[in-house]
Every structure is written in C-alpha cells, then in structure tokens.
C-alpha cells in the first residue's frame, strides 16, 4: 500500500520558472532545433521502446548485456517488466578491476560463454551489448565475437551496442534497429516478397499498403510480427525492404549493402498528397494496383469533419514520441480546422521542413514546446484543468498538460480498436496511410469521450513489447 506522505512529501517545492527557453511559437521557432540545449529532464512517460526491448522482436534471441551496473540496472529491470522478458536476458558486469587490468575482451568472452552454457535452452541467436566504456577503451570487439562464434558455431551472434555517449554516426535508436538485422543472411530470393522494417509494432493489416502488396500477389514479411526464428531467417529472401522512419534507414541500407535487398522509403505521413505520392511511387516500382486514393481521402475528410463536429474547439496537444512526423500530423489537424494548441518536440526531422514552414505561415501562434528542457520538470502540469478539457495525442503531451483525455499513440502504434486501457499485453499496430488517419479519428473520438488512467498507462515501460 503506497503511503501518500512518502510518495508525495510536503517539503519539496518546485522552483518557480517561466516558459522562456522551453516554449516558443511556430512563428518564432527556428528549424530544426528550436530550443537551447542544457540539462535534460526525463519525463515519466515510458511507453517508447528502448534498447532492452527491440531485440525481443527476434524470436528465440537471448540478450546478454556486458556493461557497468548503472547501465545494467536499467536494462535488466526494463526487460523484467516485459511479459516473459526476463527469461531472455542475462548480463555480465564490468567492474573497475576490468578497466584497470585491461581484460575487457577475456571477461566478455568468459562471461557470455558462461551464461550460454547455463541457459536451460540453447538460443538460436544471442545479441550481446557492449557499452560506452568498452569502446572508449578500444576493446577488440572483433576478437571477442570471433572467439564466441568459434566456441558456439550453432548460435548466431549479433553485435549490439549500448553506446549513447559515442554516437557520431547513428543515434542509439537507429543503431539498435540496424543491428537487429545482423543475423539475417542471404537466402535465395523469393519473388514477390517484401520486408517491412524495422518498426516496433506490426503494420495494421487493414492498411491500404498491405492490401496493395497482397492484392498483387506479394508476401509481406513484417519484422515486428515474426513468430519464429525461421521467420527471421526468411527475411534474407525478400526482394526489397520498406522502411517508414529515418531511424529505420540504417537497417534497410545495411540489408541493401549486405544482401542486395533494395531499401525503399515509405514515410509515415499524415498529408493526403504525400500519402498518394508514396502509393503511386510504390505502385510503379513494384507493379501494384493503386488504391482509390480520392475515395480514401474523402472518407478521411468526412471522418475528420464528423470528429470536429463532436469535439469542436477542444484544444489538442501532440508530441513527437507519438509520431515521428509530428508536424505533418499537426498540419493535418490545423488544416481540418481543429484547435491545435501545442506540439512537444525537442527537434524536428529534416524531412519535416515543409510542414514546419506551412505551420509557420498558417498557425504562427501554435506553441512549440520542449520535452527534455530542464524547466519542463518544474512547470505546472495544470493546462488541462484550466482548459476544462484537452485532448493529448501521445504520452508526453498527456503528462505535461495533466489531461486524462489522451490517445495512447507511440511511434504511430496504437492498440486495436479504441482501446485506452491498462492491459499490460496490448497488441498495438501501426497507423499508416489513409486508414491510419481513419483510425486516428476513432482514437481521438474515444479520447474525447472517455477519460483514461494516464499515470498508470504512461508509466508502463515499452508499450506492447513481449518477451
């Protein structure tokens, strides 16, 4: 039983700060980093996946982290919170003795081998993670994996990296996604097969994108929907890979370079014209039947009109963790007459510049707010109360405004139907294209009508992840 006096102690008073530095308007914001960098705050909205979760997408893959305790404590408990996650997770602890002795390679070889030998079932694949400290000290990572592959030839080893300090080339998330492809080997190509990846949620099978491919006789292999390790291996046989967000690009490029599978960008977009252009491009490239984009657009516009009639000028806020193309979504909603109040994002993607400029022109008073800026810790979270009712799209937007009316959208993934519940094992799928917009309208209507237990939902780690 939680003791209120202990969890909310009275002596702690927040310093009073203003919004300067962490909030601006679209009219005044600079592209692509509108806020000054400083000390960073981590809001307690945990739905986004981390490096401990993404390897769970590979069936029968065991994760072994070789790091210092401060890093291990987080990833091991993050895995613990995932249903079935802990059974697929082990660790080798780096200590000061190793740094002084310089035996980082041997301790990793010995530690990983020891764990593999003790596992109740031999894993098909092991992704080992090394951390900043080993790479900063130039551990011979190739030697380590060579020895491990010699000792365990029946296991596919993936070199994972948890190196947030050393991110010259890739962000941790992009690198994490790329490494997930490392055990995919070249297989004889299967004609008319396409891979989708790497997303954390499967694409909604009802989306017109899946329909386009399947109607033309293609097999769609979705990385986020793999059931067996054989399914994972079969990704080596696809002709091409579609990727949806910039963080998926290094993974797709890796497969293109290594296996000759063409990487094709099919961005998440909330813009009717861009969606159409994507489909036209894909239809031409893969000889697919183009859906009736005009009819789908009309269906979306009607749905949004109906939604607007119901929610009126209820303020809407959204965040960049909900969708990578947050400005595209803001533009859609503003364009359809909704009252969009604020967008939470620390930076915008380069490909969002056109949406940024559109909003600058058409919604210059729309607020741009930081997520990690230190003041975000201290500002009151009472905006929803003051507004009477406020809809948030995304967990961080819900947290910062204090609303209980929110769409639990994470990286374009949401639960099937209009579910907003506290189910620890939800089955989110990705909202994509026109039908993604239709689903979003349903989710917004549900959020408007129903309150959610926001603290209970958003504090759950890695929404939808399973071990």
């Amino acid at each position, binding site marked *: *039983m*939680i003791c209120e*006096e*202990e*969890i*909310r*102690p009275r*002596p*702690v*008073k*927040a*310093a009073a*700060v203003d919004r300067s530095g962490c909030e601006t308007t679209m009219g005044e914001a600079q592209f692509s980093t509108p806020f000054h*960098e*400083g*000390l*960073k705050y*981590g809001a*307690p909205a945990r739905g986004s996946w*981390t490096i401990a979760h993404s390897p769970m997408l590979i069936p029968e893959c065991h994760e072994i982290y070789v790091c*210092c*305790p*401060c*890093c*291990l*404590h*987080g990833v*091991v*408990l*993050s895995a*613990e919170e995932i249903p079935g996650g*802990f059974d697929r997770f*082990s*660790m*080798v*602890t780096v*200590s*000061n*003795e*190793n740094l*002084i002795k310089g035996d980082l390679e041997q301790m990793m070889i*010995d*530690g990983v081998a*020891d764990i593999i030998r*003790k*596992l109740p079932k031999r894993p098909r694949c092991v992704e080992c993670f090394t*951390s*900043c*400290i080993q790479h*900063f000290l130039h551990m011979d990572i190739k030697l380590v994996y060579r020895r491990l592959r010699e000792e365990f030839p029946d296991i596919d080893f993936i070199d994972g990296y948890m190196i*947030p*300090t*050393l*991110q010259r080339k890739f962000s941790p998330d992009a690198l994490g996604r790329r490494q997930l492809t490392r055990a995919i080997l070249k297989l004889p190509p299967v004609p008319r097969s396409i891979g989708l990846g790497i997303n954390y949620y499967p694409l909604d099978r009802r989306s017109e994108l899946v329909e386009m491919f399947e109607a033309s006789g293609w097999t769609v292999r979705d990385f986020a929907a793999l059931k067996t390790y054989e399914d994972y291996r079969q990704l080596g046989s696809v002709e091409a890979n579609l990727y949806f967000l910039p963080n998926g690009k290094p993974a797709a490029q890796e497969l293109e370079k290594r296996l000759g599978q063409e990487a094709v960008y099919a961005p998440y977009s909330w813009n009717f014209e861009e969606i159409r252009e994507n489909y036209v491009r894909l239809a031409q490239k893969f000889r697919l039947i183009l859906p009736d984009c005009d009819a789908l657009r009309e269906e979306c516009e009607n749905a949004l009109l109906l939604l607007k009639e119901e929610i009126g000028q209820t303020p809407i806020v959204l965040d960049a963790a909900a969708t990578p193309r947050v400005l595209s979504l803001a533009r859609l909603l503003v364009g359809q007459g909704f009252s969009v109040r604020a967008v939470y994002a620390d930076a915008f993607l380069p490909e969002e510049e056109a949406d940024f400029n559109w909003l600058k022109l058409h919604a210059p008073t729309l607020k741009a707010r930081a997520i990690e800026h*230190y*003041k975000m*810790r*201290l500002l009151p979270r009472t905006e929803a109360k003051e507004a009477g009712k406020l809809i948030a799209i995304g967990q961080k937007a819900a947290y910062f405004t204090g609303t209980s009316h929110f769409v639990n959208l994470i990286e374009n993934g949401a639960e099937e139907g209009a579910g907003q519940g506290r189910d620890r094992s939800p089955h989110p799928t990705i909202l994509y294209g026109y039908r993604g917009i239709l689903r979003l309208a349903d989710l917004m209507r549900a959020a408007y009508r129903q309150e959610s237990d926001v603290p209970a939902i958003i*504090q759950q*780690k890695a929404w939808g992840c399973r071990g």
Partner: protein
Amino acid sequence: MKQSQSVLSCYAADLFGIASALYELGGLVVMHDASGCNSTYSTHDEPRWYDTPSMVYISGLNEIDTVQGNDSRLIDHIAEAAEETHPNFIAVGGSPLPNAIGTDFRALARLVERRTGIPTLGFRTDGIHSYLAGAGEAFLAIARRFVKDPAARSEVSDTGDSSVQSFNEKGMDDAALLDDGGMTGRSTMTIWGEGKGRLMSADFVDTGTCKEGKRHIKVNLIGATPLDFSVVGNVVEMKKILREHALELVSCWAMGSSFEEIEASARADVNCVISSTGFPAAKYLKEAYRIPYVIGIPIGASGIRRWIRQIEMAAGERVEEKNRESARTKAGKSAGEKSNPSLLTGLDAWKAGELSPDQAELLIIGEPVCLASMKAYLEAEHGLSKIRLLCPFPDAPKELTAQMNLVTVEDAIREECKKARYVLADPIYARLMPGEPEKFLPLPHEAFSGRFYRDQIPRFVGGGLSPTPLERLLQTL
C-alpha cells in the same frame, strides 16, 4: 565466471543512491552521463518522480567532450539552470565514462560554486559502486557541509569540498574494532547484546565518549531512502514510533524533512542509523558533534522495545551540553573525516565470501541493517534459530557486515540458497531456485527489483513482517 549473472538483477548504482538521498532537499542534482542513467533512476528507483518535482537531471555527455575532457559545457549548463532555479545546493557525479577519463568532480564542484555562489558537492561516482556507497557519501556530504553547529549557528563551512576523496584508510582500522564483539570502552563501536549473553544481531549502539545526560530526547533518522524502505509507510511508521515514545524527531535523512530541518540535525541527542546509507554520516556526526548513534530498524514489538531502549541508553550517555557545543573543533572535524573512508573507492567487487558448510534454517539476503534487524526480530518473536545473513554488497560498510556473509557472485549465492531450508529475499532471487517455490519467501527490495514488486513490499517497520510469508514459514518449521 564471477561476473556473469544469468538470472539476477543488479542493485541500484551509486549515482542513483545520491539522487535518492538528496531528492527532497531542494538541490540541483546532475548525473554526468549521456542519457540512460536518468531514465533508469527515474523509472525504476524513484517512486516520487511522477509527482514530486525534484531537480534531478542528466548532463547529456557527448563523445567530443569526453575525448577532450571538456567540462565547460557541463559547468555552463549547471550554472544556467542554477541561476534560474536557485537550488539549496548543487550536486554532481559521473557515470563510467567520466570516471574512466578521471574527471575531477571536486575541482568541478569548486568551479561551479565559484561561478554560481551556491554550495556545490562533487562526487567521485563511477556507476559501478552500489547505491549504498552513493547515498552514504551523499548523506556524509550533507553532514559535513550543511549541518550547523548548534553552538555556532552562523558558522558556514568554507571548503566547498564535499568530495569523498580526502579520506584516508586510517578510519578503516578504527572501524574494524567492531570485530571484538563487545564493549570496547573507547569511543568506538560496541555491539549490543541481550539475554543469555549472545549477540542478538548486528544492531549496534555507539555511545562514543558520551556522558550522562538528561531526558527529552531528540533524534535524527539517518539513512531513509525509497531504495531501502520504498514508499509504503515504513519511514512514517518509524516517526510514529518515536512520537509514541515521546521522542522528538529533529530530522529524517532524507524522507519527509526539509533542508532546514536537516541543517539543524546537530540539535539531536541521538542519531538512528536505519540503513547502511546513514552510517558514514552518523560516524561523522559523532566525531564532529559527539552525537551517539544507534543502528537498527524497529521491526516487531521486540524490535521497537530494543530500539527505544538503545536510543534512551545512548541519549543518557550523551555528552554534556556545554561539551557538545564546543565539540565541533578542528580535531573533531578532522577525526570525522578520517574515520570515514570513502565507500566509492573500493575495488574488490566480486566476493564469494567464506561460505559456511552448515545448513541454515533461513537465509536472508539484503541490505545489512535490515538483515540484522530482521534476524533479531525473527529470533526474538518467532523463535527461529540458524538464521544466516547474506549481504550482496561488496561496498557495504565493513563494520556492518561482520556478522554476515559477504557474497556477490551469482553462483555462490545460488549455492547458499541451496543450503538453506528457506530463503527470505527479493523475488528476483527466487530464480536461483527454479522448481522450489515453496522454500522462497519474498521480501521485495526496491533497490534491486525497482518498482516491479512495489505493490508487494510490506510495511515491515513496527508490526513486523507481513504475516503471509511468515505464516508460511512458521507453519512449516
């Protein structure tokens, strides 16, 4: 392989201990790290994070600053935030990479303090030591820097140096006197025994050189963090017990007390060390202000009686007021520093301990003060014997682990579990005994399993362990 852990978790690291200890004191706490540490701490170790707006931040360390040893960006960012928020103090510690390049946090603290005019504490953390060392150093730093001498209230510490690196090893020699198992007659620790001449537990009272005093006892609770007590009412219960026995709580380090109350801690007659994290500060306060300390948690009726009696005993022997007022001499302060070797500098992380071949009726795994108090409770109120204590912290204060096995290696802990008829520990340890759920009694420890089992953490202070696991145990014994 000592360092591989197939199924176990690891305890919260030193940085998280610092943040947890300082959380409610109105400071600006900065973890010098790229990103992960703040998320780990706030997700798993800090139940107050959602609603209590404490200023705990991450610096966003990047590669180029690491390579160049450039601290100026960190200092700029801290100064920027401090000038806007006016914290009571600033605290900064580092993760493994700053440790690897030898970041001088003591110097860094001086620079920040000079620039902001705000007292700044620098901690030589490495993300490798446990929260015991981190929180212990944080409380010690608070004691050294901010506790005001009741005899000279206007006195302000002038060093700006709360780094732990100035301690030497001599203090460790003094502390080792604990092993003599009885009253030493010196200003060192004595083990409290009761009945039949046996040691009840590692509950201690250190009366130092105190002399007879008078009643109306004022106490501090030192060592309270959610990492050891969660937020299920254990600390509130301790305060209630003090009130019910007409004892005055001066401050609680650091749950539920303001920074000002902590500053006034030297008013107390007795310090109650309720976890290992409070031990270094209590030692310092004894040396600096002659405040004796009692170590233990009041678990069960017998535990409450013992705790109160020890507090009264310590207070009764406390130094005369006039002596205490002049106690904060250079010698006292110096002694306080010397007797507190840093817990963050130890290197021997992997211990298999000297394991006993004997079977134990019950094996308890956890934090040393809790272990000792739980043992005393189970022996006194449930007649259990053959209880073995296993401390998995290599950096726990040595004085507190003399009565227990220090074991950190997973395989060795598994062997100890096999030898025990029952095991009382965090539920994650149950994975060492697959197929034997009947012998495992869960006692979740937030510093180990984070928030995952929080709803199962009992309020063990006062009334004792919740009946469910105990009933199971007693029925079968």
